[in-house]
């Protein structure tokens, strides 16, 4: 005898496909959705359908957007001489939170990861090079993650872009604000020392 009615099992199976959701959590979410008002449960499915129908990739920067080109690419007040290159569209929000960067963005769609079979041809590198051909871009800020994959991607991009006469910089790596030097490992400390600046 099955544990749940077929429609409940299907709901649990679908929820289990989401990242970080296991069997127990999927069951908990499924029973929560069954318990709440019909309108509230359907609002979730409507929101998913709406987002899937309307959201696409910006043809210029590959950001997720409901208008193509996206708001960053069409905003005339933004500095067009600087492009910040990030791995995923979600990384843009982290940079925007600083309110210090007023340039444009370019989303690579991941980082070089041989273990996942992701090489340069699977990233949005070609259209980044195309954007640089106009001559208005003076600097590329590579804001990939400070991991082995992010570092390999940053160096690969710099080798590709520098010959085009565009300045390539990398976001600083090192000690997080509010942490204690005592607990920093040697690689983090080394990166912090390498990236030191004049006061």
């Amino acid at each position, binding site marked *: 005898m099955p544990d749940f009615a077929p429609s409940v099992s299907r709901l649990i199976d679908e929820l289990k496909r989401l990242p*970080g959701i296991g069997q127990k959590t999927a069951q908990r979410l499924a029973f929560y959705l069954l318990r709440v008002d019909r309108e509230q449960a359907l609002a979730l499915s409507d929101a998913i359908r709406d987002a899937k129908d309307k959201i696409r990739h910006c043809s210029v920067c590959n950001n997720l957007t409901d208008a193509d080109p996206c708001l960053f690419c069409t905003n005339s007040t933004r500095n067009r001489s600087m492009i910040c290159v990030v791995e995923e569209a979600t990384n843009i929000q982290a940079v925007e939170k600083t309110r210090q960067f007023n340039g444009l963005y370019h989303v690579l769609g991941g980082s070089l990861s*041989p273990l996942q*079979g992701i090489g340069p041809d699977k990233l949005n590198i070609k259209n980044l090079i195309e954007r640089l051909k106009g001559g208005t871009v003076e600097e590329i800020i590579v804001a990939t993650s400070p991991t*082995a*994959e992010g570092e*390999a991607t940053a160096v690969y991009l710099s080798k590709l872009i520098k010959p085009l006469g565009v300045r390539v910089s990398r976001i600083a790596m090192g000690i997080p604000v509010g942490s204690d030097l005592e607990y920093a*490992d040697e*690689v*983090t400390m080394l990166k912090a020392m390498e990236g030191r600046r004049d006061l």
Partner: protein
Amino acid sequence: MPVHESEAIILQSYALGEGDRLVSFLSRTMGRMRGVAAGARKPKSRFGSTLERLSHVRIWYFERETRELVRINQCEMIESFLSAFSDYASSIALALFSEITGAVLPEKEASDANFRLLLLATQTVKRTGKCELPLAYFALWTVKLGGWLPSLDRCGQCGQALAANDPACFSPSAAALACGKCRRPGMRLVSPPALSLARKMVAERLDRLQDGVAADAAGARAAREVTEMMLDIIEHQIDRKLVSRELLESPA
């Protein structure tokens, strides 16, 4: 729940949940293991860069008999290889090191020889900035330690010694090299320089080998040929394609 301490090499790590990491590591004393490092993706994580791929670390973890995954408590860096990932070709070779080690070694079976091999090959890539010879050496010794290396001196069919200047024939499904006379359909040729390099690799340490092998295009070609042959054997044994190998063969 006692805490275990071990020297280890990080093979791979995956994002898990909100800020955790699922880490696969090769412990020197306990073999290949998997564990969860809670909060490792957060900026102020105490793990810092220690869980980056191929980091040589000292690791502390808790193990419960009923749980498949251990809980990683602390990690201290012995040697980092993050700088070696800056070169694209080297990063592919290093990815192959971790993928092959993860694929050929069973969980929780200590193999000091495989541990030393992985460490030596990774250190050589970092020190020299070149990856052809270390990759060939790593692949050949992985095959040898797995017990899959065919005789490099004699034909597996007729038993005749393989001549120094004649190419040998090879196919991953055949467990032996063959001479020209015993060649069967589907076998490919292994050039005399590649065969000679493979024999040297069996007899010499990697650091000594580097001085003896020509660092020119011919030496690199022979190393690539050995790598191809050994990766074919590994893929045949694990019964699947190596994901990183595809990038090794495609131009950057």
